[in-house]
């Protein structure tokens, strides 16, 4: 099933740092979950439409007009680092 290299790859995709001990612990845990899931993979579903959610919804549309007030200051009041209305983050590459 999942090798340590694959676990590291998935963790990178998920942007979650994992150390060697965590990779070792995650192996059996993730493999147990994927093992349990295997039961449904063998089922013959030829011709069955995937069901992405319970209702036969179509995406509701609305007028292309501004409907929300500007609440930037309020929403940014909870941010870790803000300056001049911009969210501050470290450089992309060190």
């Amino acid at each position, binding site marked *: 099933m*999942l090798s340590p290299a*694959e*676990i590291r790859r*998935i*963790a990178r*995709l*998920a*942007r*979650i*740092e*994992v150390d060697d001990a965590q990779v070792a612990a*995650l192996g059996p*845990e*993730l493999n*147990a*979950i*994927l*093992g*349990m*899931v*295997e*039961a*449904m*993979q063998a*089922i013959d*579903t030829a011709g*069955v*439409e*995937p*069901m*992405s*959610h*319970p*209702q036969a*919804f179509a*995406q*509701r549309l*609305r007028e292309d007009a501004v409907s929300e007030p500007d*609440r930037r200051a*309020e*929403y*940014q*009041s*909870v*941010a*870790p*680092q803000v300056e001049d209305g911009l*969210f501050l*983050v*470290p*450089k*992309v*590459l*060190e």
Partner: protein
Amino acid sequence: MNDNPPLAELSRRLRTRKVSSVEATRHYLDRIARLAGPLNAFLTVDAEKSLAQARAADERIARGEASPLTGVPIAHKDLFCASGWRTTCGSRMLENFVAPYDAHVIEQFDRAGAVLLGKTNMDEFAMGSSNENSFFGPVRNPWDAAAVPGGSSGGSAAAVAARLAPAATGTDTGGSIRQPASFTGISGLKPTYGRVSRYGMVAFASSLDQGGPLAQSAEDLALMLGVMAGFDARDSTSVDRPKDDYAARLGAGVKGLRIGVPREYFTQDLAADVAGPIREAIRELVRLGAREVPVSLPNQHLAVPVYYVIAPAEASSNLSRYDGVRYGYRAPEYGDLADMYAKTRAQGFGAEVKRRILVGTYVLSHGYYDAYYLQAQRVRRLIARDFAAAFEACDVIAGPAAPSVAFDLGARTQDPVQMYLDDLYTIPINLAGLPGMSIPCGFGARGRPVGLQVVGNYWDEARMLALGHAFQQATDWHKRVPPGYG
């Protein structure tokens, strides 16, 4: 006030001015201060804010502008954003997050004049079935301090069971209202998908999540649902369908009601001390005029595997927003941007959340998407079709909410998969998007409660609540209070 009445009774007393909202709110704040500690049911309480709302409610009542929930203190699962209130989702990631806006559900309660009593503990980001996954420590079952209350709405369930709040809100993605209701001997309802707006209800799995009430009785659930339900244009999955007058329809009774009992429910995996009360509850409903009909849900055994592909997949997408940039936890030390993301998420999330994000990322990744995610969605449709076929022969489906009574704290934490498999009765209902309710129907081993799950067809909450009400007029399981909390 010297008792802990059901919501319907408290509502009557408030409207006839026998008690004020300030008195009632003080009563529950006092109980929380005295009793909530060992249960760890509450994460945030703010007496001043609650009492200010209570005063406003009393003024509204005096003006003759009250509605059923005006002045009633309600506890809210800490998944609902409430403006100015800390909203943690049971996670370090949002430990200090003060929501800058109200969820639709919070707005609905506000419009009704209810009082926000406090925010309840929960499994982190709603991922869990025991409330042992909270960053803030586990919640204990008021019936037995050694037992879990269930999850993920464990704090809300414990609060209602211990009469620390007349009622509470919860959310249910794979059983997180119904299973804790079952484990703590109270009533809980997951409405039809699309009935309650998810705006401001922090997302776990968007095609499965639904907010709903926990309370002492079906009558109370009806009053709560009357406030919570309703179309909201800000939730793209909210359905524009008028809500029923749930309270008005409570007295319909169960004469002639066809109760489907799936043969797949009664296997050797169902504990005998649960099967007994469930069968007796169904017999009681037949005594009240219903008819038992055998039905089959042939793909029942696939529901848990399907869910543990779809829910983690959706969670991996929904939780990608937690990156330390706009809100929430940011790692104290980091190098570049990628490092900040990776450390923030490694430190901010607990183990169960990380496990599910990783599973979800894997099943959506290139080369695996078809075999896992698309396949799960196809099997999901088979499961939904099973229910549609069963509902040709019956009006509601009845069975257990869980395969056992509440287990001990720590009993399942070593084996996540075993915990997942215990959600076998509740998960299929979320996959199909149907409404599901759990009402207390007895006690099993060690005096721990047993819940009867009732599943309705789409939008049939009124009929389910009427069944619950009829059952609760003939029995008194819902009136039982854990020792020490009367």
